């Protein structure tokens, strides 16, 4: 164990928690109406706490301790046996538990964007708790815990498949089963505070350095390159959105700009340990364009109320990066290349399999989870509560008293 590695991952853990609290909270809260601001912030912080407990209770052991190809073991159930001398992945095991816990927090929290302004608070809690165990934890084990995808050599450095595909696809399933906000799409009000969206996106951006560069699990050149390509991709995708909006509508908007930022960050996530600077630029370009048209397709053409575009920005971005990274892995452009004996096409096949099976499992398991939640708690607030706003109707508070 090295003190340098330990200190960097301690820092990265704090950065990744910052992504959810308050980064994602502000990013989403600015996008909703003024009467639903507190409910969105409440979703984010309550998910953070509940997922932490589920993670230490059973999530960690099932995801990351030795088991079979599909799921981990029970050796650390309730973190039994974990002490100050425990070691995992060359780090104090308590740190690995914590670092991975911040990923287990933000992944279900990403889904909040799909069901804002109309879902019951209790339903959010139950859906996310079940989802963490049934969707997130198995996929972590498949990809990062020595499961079947890891054995096939899938490349997902920081969570294109594990985080963004699982959350994005499941978000769409929940949005469809929950139904659109009343008045969608004609009579829905625009974001109440675009400045807050920018502040939230900026915190996500900074936190993402911990997310991607921390995924090196070491303080080394791999971490440094991950941070650099992350920043290049985010900057590129932001400018892509700016240019598209300028050409299409004549005015580049702040909300559009920072949506591009998040698209670029999601796209580079799986690739950040594999590609070099040129790859970072290319993936930012690709992710920016693809996510822009995905938003248009899902929201404006399919008319599915994935309210804050979780699938289009996160899911599609993460999948795009996971598949396209094979094109930019060559050592000649700063990449790491593939494992010995692996070809570009062979790797591409593994990547497609990883994205496809993960998406399929996310759909099946999320449908079951939503059906159970509908039966036990109910999904939607009443039409009156929706009109009044969830802040007062469900939390007894008001965001702004001006």
């Amino acid at each position, binding site marked *: 164990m090295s003190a340098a590695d330990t200190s960097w991952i301690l820092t990265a853990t704090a950065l990744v928690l910052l992504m959810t609290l308050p980064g994602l909270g502000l990013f989403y809260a600015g996008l909703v109406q003024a009467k639903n601001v507190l409910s969105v912030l409440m979703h984010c912080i309550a998910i953070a706490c509940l997922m932490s407990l589920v993670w230490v209770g059973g999530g960690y052991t099932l995801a990351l301790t030795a088991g079979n190809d599909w799921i981990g073991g029970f050796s650390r159930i309730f973190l039994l046996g974990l002490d100050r001398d425990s070691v995992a992945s060359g780090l104090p095991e308590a740190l690995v538990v914590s670092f991975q816990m911040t990923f287990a927090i933000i992944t279900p929290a990403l889904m909040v964007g799909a069901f804002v302004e109309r879902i019951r608070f209790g339903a959010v809690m139950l859906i996310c708790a079940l989802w963490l165990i049934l969707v997130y934890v198995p996929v972590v084990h498949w990809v990062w815990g020595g499961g079947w995808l890891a054995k096939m050599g899938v490349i997902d450095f920081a969570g294109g498949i594990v985080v963004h595909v699982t959350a994005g696809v499941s978000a769409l399933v929940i949005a469809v089963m929950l139904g659109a906000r009343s008045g969608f*799409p004609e009579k829905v009000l625009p*974001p109440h505070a675009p400045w807050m969206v920018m502040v939230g996106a900026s915190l996500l951006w900074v936190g993402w350095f911990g997310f991607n560069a921390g995924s090196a699990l070491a303080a080394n050149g791999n971490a440094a390159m991950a941070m650099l390509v992350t920043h290049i991709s985010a900057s590129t995708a932001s400018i892509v959105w700016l240019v598209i909006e300028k050409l299409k509508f004549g005015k580049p908007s702040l*909300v559009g700009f920072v949506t591009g930022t998040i698209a670029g960050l999601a796209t580079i996530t799986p690739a950040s340990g594999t590609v070099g600077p040129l790859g970072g630029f290319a993936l930012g370009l690709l992710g920016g364009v693809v996510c822009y048209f995905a938003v248009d397709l899902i929201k404006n053409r399919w008319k599915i109320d994935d309210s804050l575009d979780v699938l289009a920005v996160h899911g599609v971005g993460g999948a795009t990066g996971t598949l396209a990274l094979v094109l930019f892995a060559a050592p000649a452009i700063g990449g790491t290349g593939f494992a010995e004996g692996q070809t570009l096409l062979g790797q591409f096949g593994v990547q497609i399999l990883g994205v496809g099976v993960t998406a399929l499992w996310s759909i099946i398991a999320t449908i079951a989870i939503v059906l159970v939640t509908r039966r036990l708690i109910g999904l939607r607030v009443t039409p009156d509560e929706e009109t009044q706003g969830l802040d007062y109707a469900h939390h007894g508070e008001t965001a702004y008293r001006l």
Partner: protein
Amino acid sequence: MKMIMAVIQPHRLDAVRDALEAINVHGLTASEVKGFGQQRGHKEIYRGAEYQINYVPKVKLEIVVADDILDDAVDAIQQAARQGRVGDGKIFVWDVETTIRIRTGESGEGAV
């Protein structure tokens, strides 16, 4: 005494106040309001989706003046608020029965 109610563009408020002070009208009440007239509203675009903004922010002014300066006051407001575009606003005038100063209890034009 007359009540002047004017609905103007928010960014013309200071110009209107300056014009009124120049003719010795010291005092007005301003409120931030939303409404629509010929201007109808406008469109805003977020993530490629168009949102119709049906109510436009305006400032509503309420000013009570003595009869003899009514015309000057209305002219001052009209000229200071005017930009020559749809959405510049409107001015309404009606009679006021009386005015009472709360501090002293005096009433009539002297209390304005």
